Each structure stands twice: as C-alpha cells, then as structure tokens.
C-alpha cells in the first residue's frame, strides 16, 4: 500500500511547472512534495496563512507560531510570507493557486467531487477544501483507485458534493485520467494492469486515449 501511495505521489509530482503555486492536501497529497524534480521550484501555500511551506520540524526545533493546516510544526522557506485567513482564501478563490492536489471519497465523470462528509458518520468539516477546488486553476485528485475494492470513480457521486465540475485530473496507482466534456479519458495505464483491470475497478466507462501511454513514476 505504501508503495502504491508513493507511486501515485511520484507521478503527481510531474504535474508541476517551475514557479507554480500549489496547495497539497493532508495525507497522500502531502507526500507529493518529496518527489518534485530538482529543476522545478514550486511555492507551497498553507491555508492557515502563508506561502513558502516547507517540511515538518524535528523535535526541539519547533517555532510556536508556525504550524501547517494539519496542526504540525513546520519550517518555512526563505521566500515565505505570512498573512491572515481572509488573504489566504483571497489567494485561493482568486485563482492565484496554480495546482491543488487532494484526495477524494468519490469523483464522477462530470468532474464532481465528494470528499468531505459521509452522512451518519463523524464529520470533520470541509476546512478549506471547498474553497480550494473552486478556486485553484487545476484540481488534481491523487488517491487509491478503489476503497476496499469498491470503485471511487463513478458515473455520479453518491455522497454529498464538495463542488461541481471542478476536477481536472485523477491520478491513481492504476493510471492517469483527465476529466473531459465527453467523460473520463484514460491517458496513462500502469504496466501492472490491463485495460480490463482498470475498467473493472471503475464505476463509469473510461474513454481510452488513442495516445495511451505507460504510466511512469519518475
């Protein structure tokens, strides 16, 4: 499982251009930062109020005033700038974040996203997720293809929406997909799987790109 997540994170890291402002969600999306190519410099936005997010601190090296949005003590880069929540979300909604990477409970072929609430279960709250997916120029969902064998990429989401029509790209251990007006286009397939495998693990019909490539991790 850890290897599959690393594979997804490594492939996601290839989606950034030099100079991009990016926001990475908690969990697998955070791992993406470890795989950014050396010649690509990105600026990470932390929605609790700064740009220039860097790695978690070691014990004894914490600064009491610097946490990330998951509540961990973190370092910041030399170009860091700190601001209040209103500015932080002006950056988000105003289209100043180039790429956001998040996980999902469900994504559907219209690019609708559900990742914040399961009715009847304990609710964590949406935090900044609803703002991020509406505001970022490119929304990448990086996640395991299925949840305990159940497809997460569907014809229609069954869970309450986080936002409508916002997802641009889905990266899983099985392949890379783009959301198009016609449906979900499979552009890369990992060599461990066949077309039948990935279709069987998906709840809507995949359109196979005529230029289908092998999914490369690095």
């Amino acid at each position, binding site marked *: 499982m850890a290897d599959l997540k690393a594979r997804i994170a490594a492939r996601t890291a290839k989606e950034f251009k030099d100079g991009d402002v990016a926001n990475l969600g908690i969990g697998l999306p955070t791992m993406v930062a470890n795989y950014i190519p050396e010649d690509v410099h990105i600026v990470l936005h932390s929605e609790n109020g700064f740009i220039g997010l860097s790695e978690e601190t070691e014990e004894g090296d914490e600064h009491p005033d610097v946490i990330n949005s998951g509540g961990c003590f973190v370092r910041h880069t030399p170009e860091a700038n700190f601001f209040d929540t209103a500015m932080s979300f002006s950056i988000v909604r105003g289209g100043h974040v180039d790429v956001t990477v998040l996980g999902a409970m469900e994504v559907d072929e219209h690019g609708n996203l559900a990742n914040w609430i399961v009715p009847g279960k304990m*609710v964590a709250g949406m935090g900044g997720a609803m703002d991020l997916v509406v505001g970022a120029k490119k929304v990448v969902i990086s996640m395991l293809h299925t949840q305990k064998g159940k497809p997460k990429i569907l014809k229609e989401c069954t869970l309450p929406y986080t936002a409508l029509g916002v997802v641009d790209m889905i990266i899983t251990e099985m392949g890379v997909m783009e959301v198009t007006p016609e449906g979900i286009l499979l552009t890369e397939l990992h060599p461990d799987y066949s077309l039948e495998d990935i279709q069987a693990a998906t709840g809507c019909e995949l359109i196979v790109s005529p230029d289908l490539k092998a999914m490369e991790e690095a």
Partner: protein
Amino acid sequence: MIRKIMTADQAVADINDGASVMVGGFLGTGTPEILMEALVRKGVKHLTIICNDGGLPAKDGRPARGVGKLLEQGMIDHLIASHVGMNPLVGQGMNDGSLKCTLIPQGTLAERIRAAGAGLGGVLTPTGVGTMIAEGKETLTINGKEYLLEMPMTADFALCRASECDDFGNFRCNLATKNFNGVMALAAETVVIASERIIKRGENHPDDFTIPGIFVDRIVGGEQPWLI
C-alpha cells in the same frame, strides 16, 4: 489618555451565559489561551463560539488548546467552525446532543466575519454552489458565473491574540498566528486582545503594527508562546 489594560479575569467579567464569542486561532496557534483560561475560571455556560476549529483536546498530560479548553468544560452550546476533526469532543457532543455544530467553508467563514466588520451586506462566493452548503441560500449569476450569497456574521465579543501591542491597542500577530485575529477584531461588539508583550504607544514605528488599536476595547498581557 485612553486606558484599556486590565487582567484576564476583568476582561471576560461581562461575558455571561449565552454570549456569542469569536475566538481567534487555528488549532490553538493564535488563540489567546489566557482568555480561554479566564473563561473557564468564570464558568460561563451556553456559549456560541465562532472559531476556525474546535482547538485540540488534552493529550499525554498536556492541557487542551484553544477552544478545546471550553469544550472539555461543556461551556459551548453552539460551535460555528470550519474544521472540527482534530478534537473528538466535538463529535461526541454532537452525538450525545449536548453540542450543536455548524460547519462553514474556511474562506467563507473569514469573509462573513470580515463583511460584518467592514459594513458589507454580505459576500458573493463561488464556494459551496451546488452543495449542501447552498441549501436555503440565495444564488446570483454574475457574468455567467453562479455565486452564493453569504451573510455577515457578528458576535458580542471577540477574543484575539497579539504577539505585540501598544497600550492603545495597535497590534501585530506574528507568522501563522494571524489567521482570524484581524477580521474578528473588526466584527465584534467588544474586542479583547491578549498579548505576549505590551509597549508604550509611540515606542514602535507605526508600520510595526498591522491592526489598528481603535478596534480594541481591552488589553491583557501575559500571553505565552505555546509549544504544545
């Protein structure tokens, strides 16, 4: 000279049962902990608390952080927040019916508070269109794009944290302690700041303080750097 400096207990003395209180901070960072402690000492109940989150619960012998201090004493009836997953006391309270929790997207929460403080009649945001958040709310289409009308949010009190202030109330929040402290200071009827350091007015260059003291009614010293 306008004098605003007082003790934490004096500063919260008129926060009574049923009050609505905005609390700055993000998972405790930027929350005025000494004002949370003063509220606990006062033992006030049935509060409506507006805060980014539910703070952090007590863990491994360390005390609760931020609004978590009020939650563990059962002082809150209604929590208005954007993310409560880090404090299990919120989920427990919702399950046993002792706590009502209203969830609002983080950016919308900030703008609704800012709107109240800035004299705006509401905010138009694309966030939440087509979701549960939009239920019962007016939508407007502007230049072909749909927006939700979100209403201003005010409160009886705002409890904010400053890294440094002067004795007039001009203040600054260092690094990631800014979060909601600035917008809340504009939006509430009575504004209290708890500061790590208080200096005399005029000692600093005016550029050193980013939030004007005219919003601040009460100043309390003695905030500590919190490494928990």
